[in-house]
């Protein structure tokens, strides 16, 4: 601040003043290396807004708008506040960083299987279940307000099972405690699946299950098998109309119409409702799940031409490497293809044998040598085989007795692992084959950070300024920090670890795959190119070319590269990061110490080694030294001091929820609520909306001289729920860089669009609703809406702007204006719009849907309504479940009851995933994959071993009892009701090994960093695992470490980002990008640490 004041004296212009500091290496180093070390200076709003606005102007001008980013999570609990900074940043062309995937809360199994981000039952629907398994979901602790539904439903005779490695708070309520070892849930689920498949699918057929799977899952779809030439076959692709000599061969989108075998007709058939019917004229009226006369064969067993041995992978060997095992499946030979069904493959994968099929099968449930049996899982999970068998039987029988009212609540305990998509898929086998999905009281309840913005459509259009510019810049945050916090430099994941021996990733590392994903348009990437996106537009104009053509030519010639291919170069660094409603450094920043070193340039406790030449990515520029202190400006808006404000260059005082107007919705409750100020924002604090307005205003003034009107080349990945999802036929990967295909924007490259940025008009645009709403309408989840009527109403309700770029448009000046815009522009809160949207969907499905919202067609929820009481929302095409008639919300009920397809390749809930990478990784089908072996990958001490550094244990970071994510760990009452500072829970057995007693000061160390905390020793913890609860903010009673004599770290000081390649697949059916919808997770559960008692218990601060 002193430097800025001095420079402003000298230069007068704040932009020049800011430039003079960040461009001077000494000055930059001086303030960056002091980050987090006190010395905060008080300022005034005018002065600090001047600084922040000038920084943005400078950075847009010097480096390009996509070098700026914003992060604010979970908009459901305050969409207006979220929209404040998001709207400003998107208007200037800066990306918003995702949160759901970054938090590792996004279950990739959901887009993979349902083609949907996540959709779950409201908590009231737990009551409807006949059988409830809480699996890695600690309901009383993480779903505190709703836990009563679970405790009460037991009184209705619901059976409740808790699956948890420790005696968690929810175990108290369960009929049975299943003590599954951490991260081994896939083995448990697979064994339960084995029993269900054997007893309810192979030994006998249950009509309820058969009917459901014929219509709603991909179990009857045909898969071609590839001849390995050695008597075995490999898993292949979905057989589609375009592969066959049938009438549909020449139909529109024939390569997107997977086939089944029709028992009635005795031949191949293409059912309605596949992705091929979703787009184009021919599919109109056919995109539905009605089977008509078709009788799809779930298995070819009875109608087989022959059997074939198929090689199935398994990953349960001691070293974690893949091995293959051959088992027979019934096949038919059709038009030169050897095909079988998904069910036949699933049975074989789960080792469920049938008479006459060759290969290696288990003799009984007690055979522990074959992957899948109850006895087999016991060696990994320690759960008795007899218990697993009984639970699986009960599960299947309950589904029959209750017609699908069996529910699994899945939580972070099963979802934050590297391979959690596989863990989830094995669990979803249980809920899906038994017909429980799409039922009240049934299916999955994924409860991890999934907070649902019920009025999603209005929110998205306002938050991302889609009323002014499309497309927005949306970035997946995990990849952002993997690259920009230089974490990739320490990654030694190579092809051998990733591709299950198929060679598909030969010679590549994760960073290579990420770069490929970016250049094929699968994943977003900002900063995008090695030059400013504004400069590229200028250059195109100078060259007389259309910007997209120019960029393609430059990429092809190699003169232009993606920034991800040279991330350490200064022109490719992120320069400004703004946080609001977010505590990145106290909560979600996996690899905290990497952030401190490479992003902020301050003290860190990192001791990891960078990858040696043998394990470095091949296709990336690799300077000898990675950049440090990449970021020029970190701004945080908050109402308390956190680990993030501590490191920030600028801290702005924010209003709390009870000092501002906003909306709140969750997926646990069917209401939209409001927040209202109990008091005005005290002292100098402002609401987020007013703060960002002030920044936008000053930015617009400074932009007159410095920026003016510019053209901006926006690279956007291939989006889900658009025809762009049909870019990669058969999921066969071809790289334009190696000449396999041509680089074509929107097909084999990102979509390249041009936005005109009238920078001086930024404030005007922010505070009025733009003209695109009336011109183009809205599009959400593939459904289009005409909103001229709604904009007209908003003109009346909010008034119109009188001057500037927004003249004549509805005003968006106050937080209430924004709230009302969101409510008017969403079907969940505007019955007319919901009905209108359903009518549009009906044209595609040919089935009746609009009656679902017709009961509320005249209902418009306004902000004033929500101030009186929480208002129940309306059934809308924005979501997959129906609330019509006041029923409890359960996902996919519209799909099941109204035969609306899932947004997948087959249009069904999809078990089989035939993308090249999925097959290559051995994950075409649900399968057990154990936690990563950190000893083999990164040289950590094996779990259980002891040495002078203590004992090695698995290191988990579950939710804290009283501070989920970042809020209020520092609250005095809560600290007085617990231990008063950072703690790590450990088993009495582990503690005894290294002489730790309850409340001793301990130190936990691994290659990523050091933590200083106190021990809570308890026999409710399993041996070999410690818990350091999430987000304990390092600024409460954390001493200096014994090792470094520096401030001890936070829970994320011991973690780092590990990207799983299957999460960055794109351009292929349900594997297509959307913000927070699909993407690499910031998983963190596979980590291990050494833990020891501090030699000197008298700690220093």
């Amino acid at each position, binding site marked *: 601040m002193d430097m800025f004041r001095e420079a402003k004296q000298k230069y007068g212009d704040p932009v020049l003043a800011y430039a003079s500091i960040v461009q001077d290496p000494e000055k930059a180093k001086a303030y960056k290396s002091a980050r987090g070390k006190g010395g905060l200076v008080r300022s005034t709003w005018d002065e600090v807004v001047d600084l922040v606005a000038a920084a943005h102007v400078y950075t847009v001008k010097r480096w390009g708008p996509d070098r700026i980013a914003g992060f604010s999570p979970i908009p459901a609990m305050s969409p207006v506040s979220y929209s404040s900074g998001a709207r400003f940043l998107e208007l200037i062309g800066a990306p918003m960083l995702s949160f759901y995937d970054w938090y590792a809360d996004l279950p990739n199994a959901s887009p993979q299987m349902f083609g949907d981000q996540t959709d779950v039952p409201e908590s009231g629907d737990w009551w409807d279940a006949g059988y409830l398994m809480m699996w890695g979901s600690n309901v*009383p602790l993480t779903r505190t307000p709703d836990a009563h539904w679970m405790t009460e439903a037991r009184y209705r005779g619901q059976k409740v099972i808790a699956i948890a490695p420790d005696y968690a708070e929810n175990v108290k309520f369960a009929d*049975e405690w299943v003590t599954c070892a951490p991260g081994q849930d896939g083995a448990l689920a697979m064994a339960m699946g084995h029993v269900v498949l054997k007893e309810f699918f192979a030994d006998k057929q249950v009509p309820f299950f058969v009917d459901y799977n014929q219509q709603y899952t991909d179990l009857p779809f045909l898969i071609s098998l590839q001849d390995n030439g050695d008597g075995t076959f490999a898993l292949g692709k979905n057989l589609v109309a375009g592969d066959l000599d049938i009438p549909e061969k020449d139909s529109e989108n024939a390569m997107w119409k997977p086939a089944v075998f029709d028992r009635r007709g005795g031949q191949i058939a293409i059912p309605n409702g596949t992705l091929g019917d979703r787009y184009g004229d021919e599919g109109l009226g056919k995109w539905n799940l009605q089977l008509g006369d078709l009788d799809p064969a779930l298995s070819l067993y009875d109608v087989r031409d022959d059997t074939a041995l198929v090689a199935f992978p398994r990953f349960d060997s001691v070293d974690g490497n893949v091995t293959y095992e051959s088992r027979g499946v019934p096949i038919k030979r059709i038009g030169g293809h050897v095909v079988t069904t998904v069910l036949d493959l699933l049975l074989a994968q789960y080792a469920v044998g049938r008479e006459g099929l060759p290969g290696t099968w288990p003799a009984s449930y007690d055979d522990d040598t074959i992957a899948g049996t109850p006895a087999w899982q016991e060696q990994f999970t320690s759960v008795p085989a007899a218990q697993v068998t009984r639970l699986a039987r009960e599960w299947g029988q309950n589904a029959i007795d209750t017609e699908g009212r069996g529910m699994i609540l899945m939580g972070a305990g099963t979802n934050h692992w590297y391979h959690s998509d596989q863990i989830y898929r094995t669990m979803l086998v249980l809920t899906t084959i038994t017909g429980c999905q799409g039922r009240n009281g049934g299916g999955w309840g994924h409860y991890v950070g999934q907070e649902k913005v019920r009025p999603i459509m209005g929110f998205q259009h306002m938050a991302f300024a889609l009323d002014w510019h499309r497309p927005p810049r949306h970035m997946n945050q995990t990849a952002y920090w993997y690259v920009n916090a230089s974490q990739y430099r320490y990654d030694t994941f190579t092809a051998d670890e990733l591709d299950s021996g198929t060679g598909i990733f030969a010679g590549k590392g994760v960073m290579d795959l990420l770069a490929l994903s970016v250049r094929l348009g699968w994943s977003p990437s900002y900063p995008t190119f090695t030059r400013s996106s504004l400069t590229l537009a200028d250059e195109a104009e100078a060259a007389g070319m259309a910007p997209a053509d120019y960029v393609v030519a430059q990429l092809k010639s190699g003169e232009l590269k993606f920034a991800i291919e040279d991330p350490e170069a200064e022109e490719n660094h992120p320069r400004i990061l703004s946080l609001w409603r977010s505590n990145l450094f106290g909560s979600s920043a996996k690899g905290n110490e990497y952030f401190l070193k490479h992003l902020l340039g301050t003290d860190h406790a990192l001791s990891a080694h960078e990858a040696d030449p043998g394990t470095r990515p091949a296709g990336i520029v690799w300077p000898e030294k990675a950049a440090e202190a990449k970021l020029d400006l970190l701004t945080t808006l908050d109402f308390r001091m956190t680990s993030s404000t501590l490191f920030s260059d600028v801290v702005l005082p924010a209003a709390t929820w009870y000092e501002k107007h906003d909306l709140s919705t969750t997926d646990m409750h069917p209401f939209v609520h409001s927040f209202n100020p109990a008091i005005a924002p005290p002292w100098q604090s402002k609401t987020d909306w007013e703060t960002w307005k002030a920044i936008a205003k000053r930015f617009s003034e400074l932009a007159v001289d410095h920026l003016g009107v510019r053209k901006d080349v926006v690279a956007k990945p291939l989006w889900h729920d658009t025809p762009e999802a049909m870019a990669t036929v058969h999921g066969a990967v071809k790289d334009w860089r190696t000449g396999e295909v041509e680089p074509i924007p929107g097909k084999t490259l990102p979509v390249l669009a041009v936005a005109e940025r009238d920078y001086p008009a930024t404030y005007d645009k922010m505070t009025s609703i733009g003209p695109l709403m009336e011109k183009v309408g809205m599009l959400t989840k593939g459904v289009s809406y005409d909103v001229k009527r709604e904009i007209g109403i908003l003109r009346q309700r909010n008034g119109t702007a009188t001057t500037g770029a927004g003249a004549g448009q509805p005003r968006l000046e106050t937080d209430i204006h924004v709230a009302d815009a969101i409510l008017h522009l969403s079907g969940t809160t505007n019955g007319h719009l919901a009905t209108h949207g359903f009518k549009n969907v009906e044209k595609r499905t040919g089935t009746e849907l609009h009656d679902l919202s017709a009961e509320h067609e005249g209902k418009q929820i306004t902000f004033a309504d929500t101030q009186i009481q929480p208002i129940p929302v309306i059934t809308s095409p924005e979501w997959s479940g129906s609330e019509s008639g006041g029923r409890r919300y359960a996902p996919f009920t519209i799909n099941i009851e109204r035969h609306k397809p899932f947004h997948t390749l087959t249009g069904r809930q999809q078990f089989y995933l035939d993308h090249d990478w999925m097959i290559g990784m051995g994950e075409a089908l649900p399968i057990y994959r154990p936690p990563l072996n950190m000893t083999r990958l990164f040289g950590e001490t094996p779990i259980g071993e002891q040495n002078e550094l203590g004992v090695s244990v698995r290191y988990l970071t579950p939710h804290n009892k009283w501070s989920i994510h970042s809020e209020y760990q520092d609250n005095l009452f809560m600290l007085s009701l617990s231990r008063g500072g950072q703690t790590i829970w450990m088993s009495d057995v582990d503690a005894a090994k290294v002489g730790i007693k309850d409340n001793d000061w301990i130190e936990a160390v691994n290659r990523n960093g050091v933590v200083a905390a106190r021990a809570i020793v308890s026999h409710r913890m399993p041996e070999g695992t410690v818990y350091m609860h999430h987000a304990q903010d390092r600024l409460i009673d954390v001493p200096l470490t014994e090792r470094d004599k520096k401030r001890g770290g936070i829970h994320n000081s011991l973690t780092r980002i590990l990207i799983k390649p299957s999460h960055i697949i794109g351009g292929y059916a349900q594997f297509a990008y959307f913000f927070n919808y699909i993407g690499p997770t910031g998983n963190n559960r596979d980590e291990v640490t050494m833990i020891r008692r501090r030699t000197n218990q008298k700690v220093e601060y």
Partner: protein
Amino acid sequence: MRVMAQMAMVMNLDKCIGCHTCSVTCKQAWTNRTGTEYVWFNNVETRPGLGYPRRYEDQEEWQGGWVRKSNGRLALKAGGRVKKLLNIFSNPKMPSIDDYYEPWTYDYETLINAPQQQNFPVARPMSLISGKPMNVSWSANWDDDLGGAHEYAPKDPMLKGIEDKVKFEFEQTFMFYLPRICEHCLNPSCMASCPSGAIYKRAEDGIVLVDQEKCRGWRMCISGCPYKKIYFNHKTGKAEKCTFCYPRIEVGIPTVCSETCVGRLRYIGLMLYDADAVLGAASVENDTDLYAAQRNVFLDPEDPAVRQAAERAGIPADWIDAARRSPVKKLILDYQVALPLHPEYRTMPMVWYIPPLSPVVDVIKDTGHDAEDQGNLFAAIDTLRIPVEYLANLFTAGDVAPVEGVLKKLAAMRSFMRDINLGNDPNAEIAGSVGMSAEAMYEMFRLLAIAKYADRY
């Protein structure tokens, strides 16, 4: 018969999720002041565990409550008036601040004001007693969720006599939460202990209060209360306690702890009782008879004679109606699923508890039996993770029969409702097996499971 009315509470421990919202909202409302930093009128204990203050249930140590003398009369365990007067300046039977905990705060301002320095600033704990930096080594809820339990929990006074049944090992783990407020006893030993006559029991609703004008700070009430629910305000020098939120109750809204109870486990209602019968009931010979004796003190407002007597005693008509509707009465008298906490203290406590069900032990899971099976129902109770003896030590002076009776009713209700849930005909035999009618069992289910706001208060 002398009819009196008493506000009472029942907490269903089977539903408590241990979130401590009750504690925090109570503290915000009542003890968020200097002098009461360490005070939690409402606290929640993880059991097995030491409680707050530590080992308060060990009356050999603290000498709280009443004892029955050989002549059949009750006396304060801590001794009579003479002994009290002798000790009035040095009350030896009072928990020290260490038995509660040394309250602290943090130098939060450091986080904003720290000058530029070598290391990242941190907020340190500062004692609210001495104002100096301190080492946090105990809190209001130190052994939450069995933290340090293998070290502390063996000293839980309720484990006395059943040490061999409870092992603090991973496979045998069990716990539950016990939320506690003042018991507002019918026979309060705190009141009897007060040399100044400052403690009184309100005639109209039985709420026990401390008259702040009369209190002289002798602290005999603190010793006398076996539940340790009277606290000393070290700023004012007076005793303070839970008021049953009487300013709220008087205008017809529930206590703060109940209003904010996230688990929806608290029930508030009026009980009518015969004041003439209290002393006799509190003086029955065997501790294990106290539960039944106290139940017999209560009067059934469905009995016209009781209603007439109540009217004569000046109890307003709407209060009598309230006693008839009282959910607390239903749970205590009609269904008999609620039990008093420590009847053996002979104070006739008026905050009662429904004991928790809990997972069945591994025996069941290994043999492959299903605890939900009707045939298996009661066998499962015998193998509960929480030993019935432990619950009996809390609620029935060690008599396991009443506790088993309650647990069997809860288990039977689940089995009975399972049929209805699956669309089958209800099986009245299940209700009959625990001595209930099908109708009563369904009504009990509604009260425990639907548990709407209006039904709970």
